[in-house]
């Protein structure tokens, strides 16, 4: 495993929300999923993950409940709320616009006819 790439500021929230879109998941699972989906480029550190999860919970974008894990242990599961889903949609659109814009700036010649 190489040195994990630093996440763009503020993008962790978006990643977590996106990861939770298919269904409820516990913190460890979220970290693994992000790791896998990013083709093992992004690694979310625990010290950032849990504060972020609690922040999202406080804002009402995710809610948490205790559930049974795959290994029959108590684990805390997080899932999107309706507000969280709406927020995700907005954030995703914004992110697309942003990356598009950054792409144009970085490779301007492709825009030339």
């Amino acid at each position, binding site marked *: 495993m190489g040195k994990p790439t630093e996440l763009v500021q503020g993008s962790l929230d978006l990643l977590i929300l996106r990861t939770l879109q298919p269904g409820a998941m516990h*913190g*460890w699972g979220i970290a693994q999923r992000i790791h896998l989906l990013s083709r093992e480029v992004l690694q979310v550190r*625990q010290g950032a993950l849990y*504060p972020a999860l609690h922040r999202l919970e406080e804002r009402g974008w995710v809610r948490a409940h*205790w559930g049974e894990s795959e290994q029959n242990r*108590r*684990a805390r599961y997080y899932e999107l709320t309706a507000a969280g889903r709406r927020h995700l949609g907005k954030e995703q659109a914004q992110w697309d616009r942003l990356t598009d814009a950054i792409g144009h700036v970085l490779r301007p010649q492709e825009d030339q006819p």
Partner: protein
Amino acid sequence: MIRIFVVLGRIFRSRRRERDLREELQYHLDRQAAGADAEERRRLAAQFGGVEPLVVEARQRGPRRWLDEAAQDLRHAVRSWARSPGLCLLILATLALGIGSTTSVFSILDGLVYRPLEVPRSGELLAVAQHVRGAARSTRDDATYVSEQEFQRYAAGSASAFQGLAAYMPSVPASLERADALKPLVGDLATCNYFRVLSARPELGRLLAPGDCAAGAPAVAVLSDAAWRKEFGADPSLVGRAIVLNRVPVAVIGVAPPGFWGTEVSATDFWAPVTLEPALMPEWNVLVDANTSWLALLGRLRQGVSPSQAQAALSLTSRQLDREEAHRRTTVSVSSPSLLASPQMRSKVLLAATVLLIAMGLVLLVACINVANLLLARGLGRQREWAVRMALGASRGRIVRQSLVETMVLALGGGAAGMLTSRIGGRGLIRLALAQMPPHAPFRVPLAADGRTLGFGVGVTLATAAVCCLLPALRSARGDVNPKLRDAGPGVSAGARAHRLRNALVAAQVAACMVLLLAAGVLFHSRLRMLDGNPGFRLGGIASITYDLAHAGYDGARAAGFQRQLRDRLLALPGVATVAAATTLPLGDRHDFTGFVAPDGRDLSVEDSEISPGFLPLLDIPLLRGRNFTAADFGARRLILSAAAAKRFFPEADAVGQSLRRGKQLWQIVGVAADAQVAELGVSDSNFVYLSESPDGQADLKMMVGLHAGATIPAGEVRATVHALDPQLPVEVAPLADNLQIWRLRSGLLSNLAGTLGMLAMLLAGTGLAGLLSCEVRARQREIGIRVALGAAPKQIAGHVAGQMRGPLGSGIVAGLALGAACFQVLSHVLYGVSPWDPATFLLMPLLLLAVVLFAAAAPLRRALRLDPVQVLRED
């Protein structure tokens, strides 16, 4: 209470959240470690950084952090005060006394002026005052009252605004006939809807009903619960029986409920219909007089009617009244009724209370500044503690907050203690005031804490806390850490900024002290003048004989007979040279005001007294023009004006031979007498008018006897003479000079109060300055030691240390003098023979203050001079 649960719930929830977080993180850690070997596991754990830091971080984001720190600050504050209990107690006591005394004065003001009457739905009640100008009017009690005829007009004209408009004459003196003697009572003469307007229900029998005011209705009265218990032993069979008031049999129809106090400051013993006035008070006979102010107005508004709508309705009536009488201009004002609803009384009490509150506020300010200085000195001593804590990472805000909490704890503790003291203090003050009043005036002020007193107390406490605490707290966290750590030894002196702040505090303290001392000085000087003053008439060798035929039920003819016989018999007594009679004795407590109108329409309210021809010669009051009354003037409506009244009525012309109009009567002026302070001590130019004796005034006359030189007052013989004519009549025989006592008592009370406050302020300022100087000396021990070692003379050292106080002391005294000069006008009406800007006081008091300050400074200065340089330098 609910807030406490919310906070507890938050703490509880946050505990559970921490537990959850720990479990969640542990799960993560275990999953991560699952596939790894021992080496990898250790590496992961190290990378993770453990569970606890995350928990702590979560905690700091939560609401508990604030709570935790506040609790820490509180604990710290209590601990740090417990280390210096003496200082803590001193500050607490100072604040408790200061806050307590100001709040108790305010609670009395509140009870008198602001608190609504204690009757159901008092918010609907409205007190109505009438102000008449341009018309000749007589006044009983209060110029804003109305006559019965005016009341009827107002009631009819404002029926759409009021559910009921009632009128009453408060504080009517009456005597209740008991088997052995006459017992003085105080009652109200009220219109028969009085109790309905106040929504009172009877405790026994019934209250006044409209039928009781009808023409020819039997004489009835309602007793107060207190009078029923005190005078009649709570006898339930009293209802329906007759009692005798002012020699008139009156049937008791009911007893008012225990909580019902009426609408006046003085307790009311009975309520009788207003229509009984001619029977109960034959010598007044104001019921038929449309031009006498004698009834107070009180109404209950209809639902949805605003006070200004009611005022508009009343004004319609007042304008109608104006149209019916030439030159009359009437205005009507309304206010929410309290025990002092009359605007005149209100403004008097407000003025007195404001002056007193300002004086007490000044003492409180001096005390606060002492506390602030103590805390500042303590803060300087703790600079090293603050510096260490800041070096260890405490934020500046945190340190300011902690020292704020430390002092706030004290201030709030002082405030709470002050609120408790104010309850006791308020009662004490009322008792003190009562001790200065005639003994048969029961008097009550509701003192139970209400929103306003509580708000006032909290406001004073917060202001106190701000003065005491904020400055030292801000000081404590100012400046760099490093220099403080490096040289915060005992040898360093405070920075220039601390000096400026402290000097400003000292100047404010001295100024406050100066104002109080000046007030005390002026009042004391006026008292000295009063003690040896000459009121402008003879006081020695005269005895006053006071009795009250009116309240003993005499009518005019019977009273005239009594007076004639008494006069003759008194003249026959040994030692008696002359006898004179008057309705108002010189400097007595009775004051009659009448409106007179000059031929050119100029109208003045004057104080008057009917006098017998012997009155002026007996008192050695010289006649300036015209002649004295003679026996032929009896009932002939003749006047002798005081010089001041003559000048005001006839600034250009000679008064003698002219006439003045009172109502529809013309009174002819036969003479002008020299001004004398017969009405009010210290006021020689009051509008005083002497009236010739009339048949109507006979029941009000009192006697004075002039004694032969060297004769003592034949008090026993005089009493026997009176009782030979009427065995039941209460009579008092006293030297006329005793009348001065009432005035002296009042001035004594005032000057004692001002003196006490002034002394207290001076004491506080003196100890504060002494403390400050000794702190200064201690802080500069090393410097002084070096100076002495280098050969400085003691005089130079003393000059150096004391020199720092010179500036603030001087500016404080000057500011105090300026402040006193600017606002002592308010004292002018309680001063006798002294200007409010009395030069002697303004010269002597600064000297006194200087002397006290020097005395206070002496001890610390001596300590500075006695410092042994070797020892001081070795100590470091």
